[in-house]
């Protein structure tokens, strides 16, 4: 017998609330990693229960035509994260340093290492400076590897809006590349 879809489980949980525990068992590790990448492990640990509590309380609003609850859960997670934006900026900069270190260690000269350092700290700045909606779309797409449709479901937007937000985010990042990491990105 195949296991029930998320939609079936959530449908069942309307009459039998305990059934919602299965949604946690299926997706909590993925969401905990997502929260950890964005807000740090410590904050994430405090948020994952909160995320699923909110999901449980809003389960009536889940669109039963969607088989997987994952994009919906990502959407709730994105909202929960909005309160923790400050910590996120700090983590982005730390990630930028690490990414630059990896580039430098990949065997290029020290000039390239310096370039990578400048480049990635600017990537972090650009991502940080994106409007909430664009940043959320970009990171769900690039980090969580949700397809366009998934990002649209998570952010409750038409797919066309997701496309245009991602295009704007791409354009901001592309400006960096054109200048080989040396040009100043126009701040918004």
């Amino acid at each position, binding site marked *: 017998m195949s296991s029930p879809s998320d939609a079936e489980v959530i449908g069942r949980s309307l009459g039998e609330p305990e059934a919602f525990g299965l949604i946690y068992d299926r997706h909590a590790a993925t969401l905990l990693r997502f929260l950890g990448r964005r807000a740090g*492990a410590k904050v994430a640990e405090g948020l994952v*229960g909160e995320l699923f509590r909110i999901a*449980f309380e809003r389960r009536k609003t889940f669109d039963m035509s969607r088989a997987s609850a994952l994009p919906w859960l990502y959407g709730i997670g994105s909202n929960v994260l909005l309160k923790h934006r400050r910590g996120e900026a700090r983590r982005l900069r730390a990630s930028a340093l690490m990414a630059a270190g*990896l580039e430098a260690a990949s065997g290029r000269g020290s000039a390239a290492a310096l370039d990578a350092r400048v480049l990635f700290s600017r990537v972090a700045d650009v991502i940080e400076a994106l409007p909430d909606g664009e940043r959320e779309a970009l990171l769900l797409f690039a980090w969580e590897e949700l397809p366009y449709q998934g990002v649209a479901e998570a952010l409750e937007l038409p797919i066309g809006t997701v496309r245009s937000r991602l295009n704007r985010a*791409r354009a901001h990042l592309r400006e960096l590349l054109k200048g080989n990491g040396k040009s100043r990105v126009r701040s918004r």
Partner: protein
Amino acid sequence: MKPVDLARKLRREAAVKPAALDRGKAVLMAAIRQEVQPMRRPSIVPRLPYEDVGAALSFLERAFGFREVPAARGVRADGAIDHTMVEFGDGMIGLGAQGAHGAFSPKRAGTATQYITVHVDDIDAHHQRALASGAEIVSRLHDHLRDYRVYEALDVEGHRWRFLQWLREVPQTERR
């Protein structure tokens, strides 16, 4: 490099601790329980002050069979219990640190200023349990005017509890 790949380079792998998952699940399950069986809110809830709320809670559970209300517990920065609630049958009382709200434990005040009556289903078993847990019996178990069977005990800090069972509910064999 494509712009999205550039962003992707800043992605960090995050470890998942099983203990963190367990704590998160506990939060969810508490919310689920709350919906299945919402917390009762009686109109009157006495609150008893204690010097050591944690010790009082464990005594009341052990000796009198009270049960802590899930999610009612408030903990101080040092990890000690500041306040919580216990329930028994359809009754409910709060336990709180003395001094708050101007109330003090008999242990410090030197006297109790009230006593609480609790109706139980099996007074003899309840009495045995209280005795075995070291409750100080201040009024021995006896029948009162053939109406009810009753005893009184002090808890760890001297709050006075009166436990009784209406006699028509006492099994015939136990009656004299």
